[in-house]
């Protein structure tokens, strides 16, 4: 399946791959990088990555242009994403991360809206049902990876709109 990902104009602009010393310029640059990382991961359905993978991925390495974003700058971009709530480190060494093109709170909201719309408050679902069930086909969160889903439900739990429970071997959720 050909990935017809549309690269933004910055991707073909050599300065994009040099961390800009001018603070205002850097702000714009980093915003563009964050946006690119999220749309790239969304299209490629990539929910997690290691830093090593990232370095060699076409995302940070434009072979045609002969420019790569240096690893220190990649770290800075990832830190920006973490601050915005789109990234979570999966280990203490910061070698691999979870990337969520939508923040968990946003997913939680979408899921709860569907639950309310379909009048299924006070129902219990397995995690599988939510992401892969027939009922959710066509919903945006259909096909969502489990790690992100769990964080979305945890966000709802914080708001007392849901509770994560154990169901048999796996986990489920009750909506209020």
């Amino acid at each position, binding site marked *: 399946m050909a990935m017809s990902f549309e690269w933004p104009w910055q991707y073909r602009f*050599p*300065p994009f791959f*040099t961390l*800009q010393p*001018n603070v*205002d*310029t850097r702000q714009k640059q980093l915003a563009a990088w964050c946006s690119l990382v999220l749309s790239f991961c969304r299209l490629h359905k990539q929910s997690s990555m290691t830093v090593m993978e990232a370095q060699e991925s076409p995302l940070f390495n434009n072979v045609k242009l*002969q*420019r790569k974003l240096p690893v220190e700058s990649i770290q800075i971009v990832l830190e920006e994403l973490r601050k915005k709530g789109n990234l979570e480190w999966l280990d203490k060494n910061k070698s691999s991360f979870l990337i969520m093109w939508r923040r968990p709170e946003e997913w939680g909201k979408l899921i709860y809206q569907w639950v309310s719309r379909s009048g299924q408050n006070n129902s219990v679902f397995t995690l599988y049902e939510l992401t892969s069930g027939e009922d959710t086909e066509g919903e945006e969160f259909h096909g969502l990876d489990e790690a992100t889903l769990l964080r979305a439900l945890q966000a709802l739990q914080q708001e007392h709109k849901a509770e994560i429970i154990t169901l048999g071997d796996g986990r489920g959720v009750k909506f209020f």
Partner: protein
Amino acid sequence: MDRFVWTSGLLEINETLVIQQRGVRIYDGEEKIKFDAGTLLLSTHRLIWRDQKNHECCMAIPLAQIVFIEEQAAGIGKSAKIVVHLHPAPPNKEPGPFQNSKNSYIKLSFKEHGQIEFYRRLSEEMTQRRWENIPVSQSLQTNRGSQPGRVRAVGIVGIERKLEEKRKETDKNISEAFEDLSKLMIKAKEMVELSKSIANKIKEKQGDITEDEERGGIMSLTEVYCLVNRARGMELLSPEDLVNACKMLEVLKLPLRLRVFDSGVMVIELQSHKEEEMVASALETVSEKGSLTSEEFAKLVGMSVLLAKERLLLAEKMGHLCRDDSVEGLRFYPNLFMTQS
């Protein structure tokens, strides 16, 4: 007149009176001064003059201070005089009626006669030099050299002397301080002169330059350094001196100023030069070519690479350009991050 020393008029032990004469007036060189009527006493050691009206006004000169004496005969309406030529006052001289005098001789005018005898006696004492052989209190001795004088305290006079010593000491400290200050002022004055001369040299050079070598109103400090030192030939300026002198340019309201870029590079630019405006034209040039390195830009515009780089860096600082730093080198691009959505 500055050789005289205040005295009590009392003779010291071993000092003998030789002759005295009333009605003597003292002249400072050729000038009449206020000491117009006194008694002149000659001792084995000193020449003493005491005011007839005010006996407390009493001063003396050690005979050792006298170089030679002359007679001046009386004339019509003029009294006979003795001219006394004197050695310079010693540095540790006790206080007297005059601190300074431009004259190195005094005249003694004998208004009530007695000049002839006095002169004879004075000449005799000058020949015999009895003061050299008869020691008296230290303050009467020949102190033409700088002797560390221990001040002998003898009654009120002793206290006065001690106070005088203290005053001299304070004076000395103040003079030294003023010496330092005046040295500092001389140095500052040198710097000011230096700044002006540098400004002139640059101006001259500007005048000499052909169109090909147009400086564009800005020169790096190293270029100025070479310029100035080449012109001087001798007594070259140190880099530190140059920087200090250039710091004064703006203060002295000369048409040049020293500017230090973020990188630390220093330049001299015309007051009228507006580097920020040059940046706008730099942006145009870079945009036309898509991107430029410092070397490429320098060549295009006709500037030194050092100044070209500073201009591009300033443009980047102002947000007009951004950079591409890779193995291929450092290139500057128009800042599309800001201009494009």
